């Protein structure tokens, strides 16, 4: 009985840790969109993966135009989906940009020290909204 109780407490604690570490990636995207407009550099850097922060420090922010532009492309958001597996989170947002063009935004996040940082982004200009995704897709660098 004692053992069962201990297991239950362990599961409950584990759930709490998971809840703390898991995050609504769409909220993270919205926060990034606001901060990039306010150009709060330090805060923006804290929203990127460590690898990208290191590369920006080495190469300069101008070498990373997608990171500075992607959150501005959507004027209207239609739907969004996220998936989290281990330390990788993927967020896909369907929406419309300039001249009502359908756009699918896919963002790969890395969880490092309980912080979800943006690691890679794909801005896909769809031919029509029929291409809109109904699940999260992870953008690949290849």
């Amino acid at each position, binding site marked *: 009985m004692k053992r069962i109780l201990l297991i239950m407490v362990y599961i409950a604690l584990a759930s709490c840790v998971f809840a703390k570490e898991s995050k609504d990636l769409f909220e993270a995207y919205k926060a990034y969109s606001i901060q990039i407009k306010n150009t709060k550099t330090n805060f923006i850097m804290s929203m990127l993966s460590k690898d990208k922060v290191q590369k920006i420090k080495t190469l300069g922010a101008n070498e990373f135009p*997608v990171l500075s532009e992607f959150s501005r492309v959507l004027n209207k958001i239609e739907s969004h989906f996220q998936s989290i597996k281990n330390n990788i989170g993927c967020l896909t947002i369907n929406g419309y940009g300039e001249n009502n063009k359908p756009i699918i935004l896919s963002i790969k996040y890395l969880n490092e020290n309980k912080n979800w940082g943006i690691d890679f982004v794909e*801005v896909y*200009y769809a031919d029509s909204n029929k291409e809109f995704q109904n699940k999260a897709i992870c953008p690949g660098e290849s």
Partner: protein
Amino acid sequence: MASKIGIKITIAKLIEIAYIKNKGLTTKIVRKKGKFKITIDQNGKVKLHGSAGVLAFNGSLALEAIGAKVKFATIHFSKAEGNSANYRANFSFAGNQAAILITGTLNIEELITSCSGLLCNAAKLLNGNNKRNEERLKEIMEN
């Protein structure tokens, strides 16, 4: 059978399409100090790679002009003198067609600024075989 000049014109068209899709982002990617690349997959999906991200679109219509089904392609660009960029393109085709490797130089600035008006863009999009545009792209890519 794919021709080298057909591929060169298609490369220029793909940059133009990217520019039409997102002028600001494309300009920043192609003008940055370092290298950039374009990749094409078997479905005609074109990706303009900036660091840490890509601008992507369906390039099937522009790829049709090559006259052969592209299996995959990679075009690497590196900064040359002035507004020019050196490129090295590797195209693989479906079937038994031999792969084609092309190198050259193009004036990126000229390419993205010579035809940016709304009407001009619309004409290019509506008519993939626009003769004047083809000639202009040929000139830019043959430099």
